[in-house]
Structures are given as C-alpha cells and as structure tokens.
C-alpha cells in the first residue's frame, strides 16, 4: 500500500488510504475527483488498479420507465440479505444546454434506506464525448478497490454513450417493458446485441407473454444472422460489439444463449431467478475463459482511449503554437492550403519523435 501511495501527493495519498480502509466519505470523494477530472486524479486511479479485480460487475439498461431503478433496488437488497456488499452507479442524461441534470434514481432505492453498505452514486454525462464511459470505468475501479462484492451500473439504453457504459460490465441485462412497441426501438438502438440476459419486467401486465415470445424470436434471428455472417465462427453469434470476439477464437467449446427472465420488480417477483441467471452467466464467463478475454479487451480499449485523449491534448498545444485553430482555418479558407495538409503539418513533429525513438 505504501508503494502505491509513494507516487501521489499528500491529500490524495490520505484519500486512498481512507478509501482502502473502508471510509465511505473517501470513496465518495474519490469518485467526485474522477468526475471532475481533478488535477492528479489519474495518479489516484492508477494507484487504485492494484486493488481491483474482485468485484462482479453487472450492467442494467433499458428504456426510460422500464423499471431499472426498481429492479436494481431489489437486486441490491437481495445481495445484502446474503451478506454481500453492493455498489450502484446510476447514470442519467444531462441537459446538453446547461449541463444541469436532475438525477432521480435514488427515489427507487427504498429497500436499502440507511444501509451504508449499499453505496449508491448518481452520475451524469458531463461535456466531452466518451468522457462518461471513462468516468464510469474509473468509478467502478473505486468501488472495486473499496471491496464491493457486486457492482451494478444502471443506465438508459439510449445511445452509443450509454452502450459504451454498460460495456464496462461483465454481464449486461436489458430490461424490456411489455407491449410497448419498444421492441422494435431496441433493435434500432443496437441494444439487442449487447444483452446477455433479457428481463421482461412488469410481467404482471397484459402483453407480457407476447413480449417474451417476440423477444425469443428476435434473439433467435440474431443468432441465425450472426451465424451466417461469421461463417461458422460461433463466437461472433453473441457478439458483444465486435472487437473482443476477434481476440479469442477458442470459445467454440461453449456458447451462451441469451436468457429471458420475467420479473415484477416492484413486488420482488422473479428477482431470485434473475440473480441466479446473472450468476449462471458469471460462471459461464469464468469457465469459458471469456471473463479474461473481456478484461483484456476492456484494458486495451481503456489504454487506447487514454492515449487518444493525451495525443489530442498534445496536438491542441501544437495547434496553439502554430497560431491557433483560427489561423490554420484562415489558410484553408483562402485556398492556400487544405485540411489534410494542415493535419499532416501539425502531426509531423510528433511523428518525427516517435520514428526516432
């Protein structure tokens, strides 16, 4: 522990020690620093890494009103009754105009009121593209290092940003409300492809059976189409977004067929079955070596994201040195040069350095 803290400054070192010692306030503050991209947060997060790797991470997504928060509440409570500790990250959209947000997922956490061993944190997308998934990944690390047994990430399945967020999870559950015409919407959003477990919530409503039926057909189609596309490579048939499947060709042995579970989250019906299905998927991941493959893909992606940010920053500085973006654009407007040539010129010194090394 002292080895880690040697690298970082006094305030952050204390914070890290407090987090590892189980202080809730420190955990909360670390996540704030991650969200704020506080100076020095990177050293803090890199010091966390060594203490991570023991939590099970589940992503829960679905359309607004599908019952995600209510289900998360019940699942968290179920884990708590078994004596496990839980971390929850609830992601809500923010206003693109003011940056403000109303984060209301806490209202549904009625089963865990006053239980500090359910650490619930609301997050909103702030500013930069891709920033949300970076912040979520780092917040998961904080909860993991804190020692949470289970981590639940809850997000509206609305766009690429959110899909990137749930990809932080080992297991992804997609909630589908009954008879909502939402089924077709989900197909469009590409949500169907990322689910390991599908939950038809509000299963007591009319139309639930039909939704289960439709979902079964759609999943069947997804399997068939993927199978033909991948010319016999079974791994791709439950593609999680592509890249990680290409990295392990050895999962011919066993495949995971997405499961469908029916729940009535508000009454807790179906919650034990849902939790059991999550555990089945987890066991499958471990058995098949997919858990490790996923982790590899995730780290690779994380490194790439960080590098993209860093290089972008270096290049912003270089643009400034060359008189600023307005200056460069003026040349393009005057037909003295063109965007490609400008890009080549700006990146040239960087390229030169890398070639020399």
């Amino acid at each position, binding site marked *: 522990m002292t080895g880690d803290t040697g690298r970082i400054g006094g305030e952050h070192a204390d914070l890290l020690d407090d987090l590892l010692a189980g202080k809730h306030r420190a955990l909360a*503050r670390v996540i704030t620093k991650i969200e704020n991209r506080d100076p020095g947060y990177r050293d803090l997060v890199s010091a966390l890494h060594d203490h991570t790797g023991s939590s099970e991470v589940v992503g829960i997504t679905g359309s607004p009103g599908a019952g995600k928060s209510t289900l998360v509440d019940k699942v968290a409570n179920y884990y708590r009754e078994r004596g496990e500790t839980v971390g929850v990250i609830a992601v809500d959209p923010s206003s693109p105009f003011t940056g403000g947000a109303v984060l209301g997922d806490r209202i549904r956490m009625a089963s865990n009121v006053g239980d500090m061993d359910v650490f619930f944190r609301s997050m909103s997308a702030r500013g930069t593209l891709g920033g949300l998934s970076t912040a979520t990944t780092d917040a998961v690390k904080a909860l993991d290092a804190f020692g949470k047994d289970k981590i639940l990430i809850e997000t509206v399945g609305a766009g690429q940003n959110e899909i990137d967020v749930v990809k932080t999870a080992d297991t992804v559950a997609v909630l589908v409300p009954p008879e909502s015409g939402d089924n077709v919407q989900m197909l469009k959003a590409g949500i169907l492809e990322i689910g390991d477990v599908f939950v038809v919530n509000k299963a007591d409503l009319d139309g639930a059976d039909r939704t289960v039926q439709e979902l079964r057909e759609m999943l069947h189609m997804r399997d068939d189409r993927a199978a033909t596309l991948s010319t016999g490579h079974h791994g791709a048939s439950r593609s999680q977004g592509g890249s990680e499947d290409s990295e392990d060709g050895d999962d011919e042995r066993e495949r995971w067929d997405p499961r469908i579970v029916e729940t009535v989250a508000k009454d807790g019906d179906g919650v034990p079955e849902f939790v059991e299905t999550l555990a089945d998927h987890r066991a499958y991941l471990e058995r098949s070596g997919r858990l490790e493959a996923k982790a590899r893909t995730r780290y690779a992606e994380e490194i790439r994201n960080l590098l993209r940010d860093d290089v*972008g920053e270096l290049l912003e500085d270089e643009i400034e040195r060359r008189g600023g973006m307005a200056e460069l654009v003026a040349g393009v407007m005057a037909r003295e040069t063109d965007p490609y040539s400008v890009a080549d010129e700006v990146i040239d010194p960087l390229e030169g350095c890398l070639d020399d090394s």
Partner: protein
Amino acid sequence: MSADSDQQSIRCLVAKVGLDGHDRGAHVIARAFRDAGFEVIYSGLHNAPDEIVQAAVQEDVNVLGISILSGAHNTLVPKVIEGLKEYDAFEDTLILVGGVVPDDDKAELKEMGVAEVFGPGTPMEETIEFVRENAPRR
C-alpha cells in the same frame, strides 16, 4: 477536451423530510437548479434523516437543500447535521433549509450550522446566486 481539464459541477441534494406530502416546492427548486447548470439529486418524499445523510455522503454533494413544510425542522435538521458530522461530511457541505420557519427557529437553525433559510416567496434567482457564491469547492 483535454483529459485533465477540470469539469467541476455543483452537486445538490434536494430532499424532503418529514411526513407532509407537499413536494411541489422541492420540484420547482430541483428544476431551477438544473436549469442553472447544477447536478441535482432528488430523493423523493418522506426522507428520514439517516436517508438524507446516506445520500449526501455517498453523492458527495456540495449543497444539501432540505425542504420542510411540516414544522418539524427543530427535530429533523439536528439529526441530519449530527449524521453528517459522523461521516466527516458536515464541514464542506452547504446546508440550506426551505419552508415556513419562524424567525426564532431560523436563528437557532443557523446556530446549528444551516447556512441560510429560504422562506416562501424567495425569488429563485436569490437562492441560485446564494448557492453559486457559497457552495464549497471540491
């Protein structure tokens, strides 16, 4: 765009304590705060003091706004403050109370550590300005 650029945002918990069911004021505040660019965590009706403490600590809010219309502020607010102290969260959380509070009680609440009490008819801009000026930085 840069990876280290500070993206600090003011986080506020808007909480309703006590048994009354009048949450319109809390809703109006939550929306106004959002429109001012704050991140608002809204925790719904009938929060118990320990629930508010849990939320304020975990969410690491800069501002805690408690809406009380039942007249029970003298019993509920001290419990919240006590809880925050227990988790070392009292010092750097700006505590505001909204609702109908007699002047004598107002002084007492401020004595306890409440930064300001906003009564009925307070212009929204005044509350937002107060938050902007006084919210502790992280």
